[in-house]
């Protein structure tokens, strides 16, 4: 194809000769300019093996430091908006939900979230606490997201996807760094980082303090005339400290130690009932130890042990006035504890991973582990005693590169616990690499999510006071709100996908995915009739089901010099039912369209401007009122004041235009502005 440009000669194409056949060398095998200008990015979270994105049996998204900085994100959960098919929302000001293809509520639990391979999933509420992960935004090197079920590699919690946050190794951190962010809603965030070396130990230390006020004023859902404004008490204050150390005693061994703690308080509640907010105190810590060894035969061994501890303290007293229960005539007033986000959970996990390289075309990973979890919550379990569970797991993945075009992955996870027995989750994937840049992928899998400790054991009961006024009912259950169901089974998902990936120089890429997910035996709370105060009790049952199908698009482009565009879009069609719910509907709980787009431009060597837009279709999340569709615009302007010490000043404006609502009534996001200063020394 000949092109002419201004000032250039027109080229006459007289013939399109075929090239002579006798090539002196096979050009494709020679080291060429493409080796230097096409990045070799690899991901590890899909199968546990380090693979190029063109060779994995699932679609992946990488969120790197460039994107994190350009987005102007003020918390970690917001970054997941850049994953096609994911939705992110504020449940309360400091409490977030992240889901894949909808079906979320206040405590979504179908995504595995890990930090450096350590799961941060909370058995206490069957979800993830995004505001208390124990790390800061600056600690993050990059985030690997697996789109679609990743149970075959990461187990039960990765039912619809997996997020692995990789923190920076100590040598990648600055010696000293401070960062201060001030913003609307009395937002104050101060962070520090420090790194150094103690003999053979490289370490990094970071700390974070956050304080903010809540969303402002709201109205009860029944107050349609908005006659009684109520202050939403969902502000908070959280302090976090984390340590990461890398010890390399010799050439083949390395030890990685991570420690962290989070303490604080945030306001939580149901947004459409703003009168019902309460403080939730948090105390959590973790310890992680990982040993990696390069074996003499080129294989790898890894042993990973970690411990997570979480304690929530939550109290919200509901006052029952004297003589208000007609069945008992005269009786004293009493308070009923309704703060249910209260208790302690712990997890101990030990895993052994072995990667065997048979030859240049075959690799196998084995990963065995056991997990011990406990949950203690007097209010959620109606008992002072803890419940516990031991889960055994064994995963494997065989990667076979048949030739330079075809790659096959066959993997499976076998999980066993006493309650649900054994579950086997397999996956088959095939990748066809057209050339170094283009590849196609097809994969099918079946996976199970075992019920969480909470789903299997929740027993919420209201007791009458032990007072003679209540006669034979003194001290007895007054209202059984929920009870466990003995035959609760794992959820199931069957998924299939086809994907296309185009990798271009300078980290540009296009990724398209068509997906189909069929979820059965989904766990939902249903009401059953019993004879008590309100004649009903809730149980978690396998009642719901849905299918979700659609398309995901991911684009990273440099449309012009010094410009960068990141785009994540998905369209999902969902059909299904929550048969026993008056409000929940599978279609309603899945927004059809989700979009995140970020355009960044280097204006000058020290100045960078980014404009982002996020849009989502209307949705009704579980337990919430319907929210309309929205589109939000954010601006981020960063300027390096001084190259030495990397002194930076940033202006972040979120939601430039009209207000919108996230997750539920009263979560009204208006324009928020932040000023951020950082320097290294």
């Amino acid at each position, binding site marked *: 194809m000949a*092109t002419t440009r201004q000032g250039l000669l027109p080229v006459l194409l007289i013939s399109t000769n075929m090239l002579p056949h006798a090539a*002196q060398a096979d050009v494709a095998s020679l080291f060429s*300019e493409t080796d230097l200008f096409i990045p070799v990015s690899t991901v590890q979270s899909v199968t546990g093996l380090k693979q190029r994105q063109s060779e994995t049996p699932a679609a992946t998204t990488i969120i790197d430091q460039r994107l994190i900085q350009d987005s102007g994100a003020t918390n970690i959960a917001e970054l997941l908006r850049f994953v096609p098919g994911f939705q992110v929302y504020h449940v309360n000001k400091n409490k977030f939900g992240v889901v894949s293809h909808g079906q979320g509520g206040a405590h979504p639990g179908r995504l595995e979230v890990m930090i450096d391979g350590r799961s941060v999933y909370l058995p206490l509420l069957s979800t993830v606490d995004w505001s208390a992960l124990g790390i800061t935004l600056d600690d993050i090197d990059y985030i690997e997201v697996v789109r679609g079920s990743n149970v075959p590699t990461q187990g039960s919690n990765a039912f619809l996807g997996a997020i692995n946050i990789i923190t920076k190794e100590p040598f990648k951190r600055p010696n000293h760094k401070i960062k201060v962010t001030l913003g609307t809603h009395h937002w104050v965030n101060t962070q520090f980082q420090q790194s150094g070396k103690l003999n053979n130990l490289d370490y990094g230390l970071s700390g974070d303090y956050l304080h903010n006020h809540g969303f402002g004023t709201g109205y009860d859902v029944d107050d349609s005339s908005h006659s009684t404004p109520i202050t939403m008490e969902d502000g908070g204050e959280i302090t976090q400290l984390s340590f990461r150390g890398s010890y390399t005693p010799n050439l083949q061994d390395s030890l990685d130690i991570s420690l962290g703690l989070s303490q604080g308080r945030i306001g939580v509640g149901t947004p459409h009932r703003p009168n019902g907010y309460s403080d939730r105190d948090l105390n959590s810590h973790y310890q992680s130890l990982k040993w990696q060894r390069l074996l003499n035969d080129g294989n790898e061994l890894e042993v990973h042990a970690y411990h997570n501890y979480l304690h929530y303290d939550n109290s919200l007293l509901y006052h029952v006035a004297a003589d208000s229960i007609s069945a008992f005539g005269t009786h004293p007033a009493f308070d009923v504890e309704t703060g249910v986000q209260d208790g302690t959970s712990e997890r101990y996990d030990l895993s052994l991973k072995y990667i065997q390289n048979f030859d240049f075309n075959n690799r196998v990973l084995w990963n065995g582990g056991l997990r011990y979890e406990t949950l203690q919550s007097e209010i959620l379990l109606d008992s002072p005693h803890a419940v516990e569970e031991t889960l055994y797991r064994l995963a494997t993945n065989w990667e076979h590169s048949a030739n330079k075009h075809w790659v096959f992955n066959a993997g499976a996870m076998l999980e066993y616990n006493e309650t649900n027995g054994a579950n086997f989750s397999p996956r088959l994937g095939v990748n066809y690499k057209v050339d170094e840049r283009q590849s196609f992928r097809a994969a099918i899998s079946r996976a199970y999510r075992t019920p969480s400790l909470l789903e299997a054991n929740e027993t919420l009961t209201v007791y009458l006071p032990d007072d003679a006024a209540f006669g034979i009912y003194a001290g007895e259950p007054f209202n059984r709100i929920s009870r466990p169901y003995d035959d609760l089974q794992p959820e199931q998902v069957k998924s299939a996908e086809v994907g296309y990936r185009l990798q271009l120089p300078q980290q540009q890429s296009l990724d398209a995915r068509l997906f189909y997910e069929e979820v059965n035996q989904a766990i939902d709370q249903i009401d059953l009739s019993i004879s008590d105060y309100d004649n009903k009790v809730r149980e978690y049952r396998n009642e719901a089901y849905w299918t979700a199908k659609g398309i995901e698009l991911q684009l990273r482009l440099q449309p012009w010099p010094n410009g960068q565009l990141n785009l994540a879009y998905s369209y999902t069609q969902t059909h299904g039912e929550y048969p026993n719910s008056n409000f929940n509907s599978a279609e309603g709980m899945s927004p059809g369209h989700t979009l995140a787009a970020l355009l960044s431009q280097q204006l000058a060597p020290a100045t960078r401007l980014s404009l982002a837009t996020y849009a989502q279709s209307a949705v009704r999340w579980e337990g919430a009122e319907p929210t309309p569709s929205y589109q939000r615009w954010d601006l981020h302007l960063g300027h390096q004041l001084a190259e030495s010490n990397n002194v930076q000043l940033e202006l972040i404006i979120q939601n430039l235009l009209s207000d919108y609502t996230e997750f539920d009534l009263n979560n009204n996001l208006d324009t928020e502005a932040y000023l951020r200063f950082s320097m290294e020394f």
Partner: protein
Amino acid sequence: MLILVAPTALAEPARVLLLASKDSSVYQEVIRVIRQQLADADIQLAAVMDPNSTSEKIFEQFDLIVPIGTLATQTALETTVTKPILSTLIPLHTFGLLSSPFTTAIRQGRITALYLEQPLDRQLQLLKLLQPQVQSLGTVISDNSKQHLSDLQKAATAQGWSINAKELQEDDNPVATLTPIIVNSDAFIALPDRAVFNRSTAKWILLMTFRQQIPLIAFSRSYVEAGALAAIYSTPESVGLETADWIQHWQQNAALKLPPPGYPQRFHLSVNRGTANSLGITPPTDAELMKRLSK
């Protein structure tokens, strides 16, 4: 009797064909920069973005063929025997393989190349600026990079350093091969060689040099971002600028003779200061390093 008439300086504007290996952003950038640099020159440029669409008849219309990249260079060498060729954006070894039947033409200044890599002595100079105490330098090679090794030995000898090098075959396990090299070297240099620097070997080299706490000098920015200490490298922009210089010099040369194949004068520098910190190195600023390397 065939009389070979030496070409003389052109009376009309020179007609130069820029032949890209592919219609993608790397090659487009090189062409854009060349066009920008030669906007005021008495040179007429044409660009073809697909080597498969050229032919000898097309080449006949031009005074100089500038293939950009490996595939375009192969096409140009196979298509024309009369037109001068200035290959650019091509690694040294690859050009050497493709042009091996044309050594006479190279000697006569009718075929040449502007290499993609940076000269080894500049890379060693960078290492010396960052880590003056180096005495021994390690590397691994394959069949493809043996030429590099002899050049490296010459450059290292000029610094007074010794070389620890070993050949890495496809079936070798990288840990066993790399261990004695890395343990016995003060620094490691990564030579551009696809057979050596596939996905697993590059990872081992990064990991093991980091564990041994020796600096790793690489050949690309992405390697530095992955943890190597430093690299000097060409970019499409710097290649475009230098290629434009070479075209102008050719045009101004009365005999229209091309210079011998050579390395670029321009380069970019990347230093991983986190890695430097971990190695206990306090490198000069990038500006200072560039200034010293440019002398």
